């Protein structure tokens, strides 16, 4: 069932506080009722089944089978090895009593940590996005 809002872009808005989404509207009666008249922000004024479409960045699904594929772009799959190795090298550094072995393990942990960070943060956007090709240059219309 459609809503009664002809132009929700003009009279509906949203904001987020913590884990809550607020859907508000300026539509209201024309009466002079205090803080409820048309133009005042207030709670959304009607029930609409599936009336809100939320676009969001989601958490990837977890894996629990050997045959599972990680739920992220395949360009990032090999980088997961770096993440896991960095943690395992830290564990190894903490377990060993040999200071040289511990130092070597920590260095290798840092190497893998950096590779993971670079893949995820430094080059991540460029690797994952699906945008490519030459950008158009549009000059001002001076007429």
């Amino acid at each position: 069932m459609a809503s009664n809002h002809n132009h929700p872009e003009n009279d509906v808005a949203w904001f987020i506080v913590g884990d809550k989404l607020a859907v508000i509207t300026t539509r209201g009666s024309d009466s002079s009722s205090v803080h409820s008249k048309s133009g005042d922000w207030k709670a959304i004024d009607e029930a609409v089944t599936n009336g809100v479409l939320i676009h969001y960045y989601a958490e990837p699904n977890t894996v629990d089978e050997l045959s599972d594929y990680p739920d992220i772009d395949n360009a990032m799959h090999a980088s997961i090895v770096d993440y896991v190795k960095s943690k395992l090298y830290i564990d190894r550094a903490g377990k060993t009593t040999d200071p040289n072995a511990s130092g070597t393990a920590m260095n290798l942990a840092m190497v893998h940590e950096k590779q993971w960070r670079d893949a995820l943060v430094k080059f991540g956007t460029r690797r994952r996005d699906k945008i490519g090709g030459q950008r158009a240059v549009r000059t001002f219309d001076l007429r």
Partner: protein
Amino acid sequence: MAVRRLTVKNIISRIRQTFPEAPDNYLYNLINDALLEAGLYRTKVEYAKATTVEDQMWYDLSDTGSSVDINKVFRVDFMDSAGDYIKTPRMLDGEILKMDIT
């Protein structure tokens, strides 16, 4: 041409080259930690619909309270009178005069 992807088995076999003694459960946990961290960097875009209730301002986005696992909302559309979803503006400060607790 097939897409190059790694299964969990492939990932674990690479790790076992250096750490043959690492327990399976621990490796699963670490792989899932990696996925959770990767999810913080906008790797997966999803959509969900919610039903509004008359005069109800707040709708739950928490991982436990709703059925979806939301990291960051970047757009909210509202259905218009023709049944189409129309982009609505985000209020930046959220400081409206008449606040509701429901």
